[in-house]
């Protein structure tokens, strides 16, 4: 499975969730598959998708918040896994697309091939942490996290590699903010 397939599989299931997307190909691939006002495309500030998502989830506990993160991002901000577990928002699902490389900068390896991030999340105190390696298991894993109390963690192991034709997010940062806030009724 490639990273973009995660969005192809899960995008049809989205409704009014707040979705925070990590920088790099995670934002770009989601933008390509399903651009929606409720998507916050993080174009800089590597490592912070998880803390931004936590802030959204805590401020709007009645709305489900999804974080689409990458292995490099999670490794950079591992302490935020502990914060999410400590705050324990029931409405938060943290999805990590793990390709074991920093794709956007030339596919240098991360260290997630030897560090099982879902075990880290579970040890921190996430209510549930699942690992998926096949596309046909993705939807049911996501749905089981939706049905359970959060915070939930879904590690999706994918192959590195992307379509070089994948565009960049064309909205300006201010447009991204305004669309996102409007979709959250702020």
């Amino acid at each position, binding site marked *: 499975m490639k990273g973009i397939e995660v969005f192809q599989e899960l995008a049809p299931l989205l409704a009014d969730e*707040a979705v*925070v997307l990590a920088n790099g190909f995670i934002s770009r691939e989601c933008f390509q598959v399903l651009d929606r006002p409720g998507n*916050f495309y*993080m*174009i*800089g*500030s590597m*490592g*912070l*998708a*998880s*803390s*931004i*998502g*936590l*802030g*959204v*989830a*805590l*401020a*709007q506990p009645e709305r489900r918040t999804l974080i689409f993160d990458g292995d490099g991002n999670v490794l950079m*901000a591992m*302490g*935020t896994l*502990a*914060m999410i577990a*400590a*705050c324990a928002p029931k409405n938060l699902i943290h999805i990590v697309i793990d390709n074991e490389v920093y794709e956007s900068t030339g596919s240098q390896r991360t260290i997630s091939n030897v560090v099982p991030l879902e075990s880290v999340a579970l040890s921190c105190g996430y209510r549930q942490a699942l690992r998926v390696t096949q596309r046909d298991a993705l939807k049911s894993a996501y749905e089981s996290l939706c049905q359970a109390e959060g915070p939930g963690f879904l590690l999706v192991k994918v192959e590195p590699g992307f379509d070089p034709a994948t565009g960049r997010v064309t909205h300006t*940062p*201010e447009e*991204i*903010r305004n669309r*996102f*806030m409007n979709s*959250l*009724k*702020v």
Partner: protein
Amino acid sequence: MLSSKTFIEKLHGHGFDFFTGVPCSLLSGLISSLEESSGYLPSVREDAAVGLCAGAFMAGKQPVLLMQNSGLGYSLNAFTSLNLIYGLPVLVIMSWRGCGGNDAPEHIIMGAVNEKLLATAGMDHDVLTRDNVDALLVQAVDQIKNKKLPYTLLVKKGLFDERH
């Protein structure tokens, strides 16, 4: 000296309703007062606190971030590549360790440059005193509502009651 409790009440009065940060002894009274009133979320790093406040702001909160000036180093990229480009405001209350060169060695360099770093990055800031607190909080709210940018209040040793 400014009472932590009074200052927190003023923040509440101006609509601030989300508090996080990484502690400093100079801010210990403020954090205790928050724990006793509206609540305070301990962040593990200052950049994570910046992200947390950014998310909370977009979802309707008016956030305050407490940190030591040492945390400015950790959070500068978060401010420049998140808050300053998206226009995400936050009130930062930053203790000024190393002010005047009179502190432990680890605080001297940042203490000498934190104002210049903030200015270079285009981040408005002021030094909080007993006498300007009301005026600066009005300015902070204006900055947040109209400019949609972070605003930093620097706190020198002895301004607030410390509890440690």
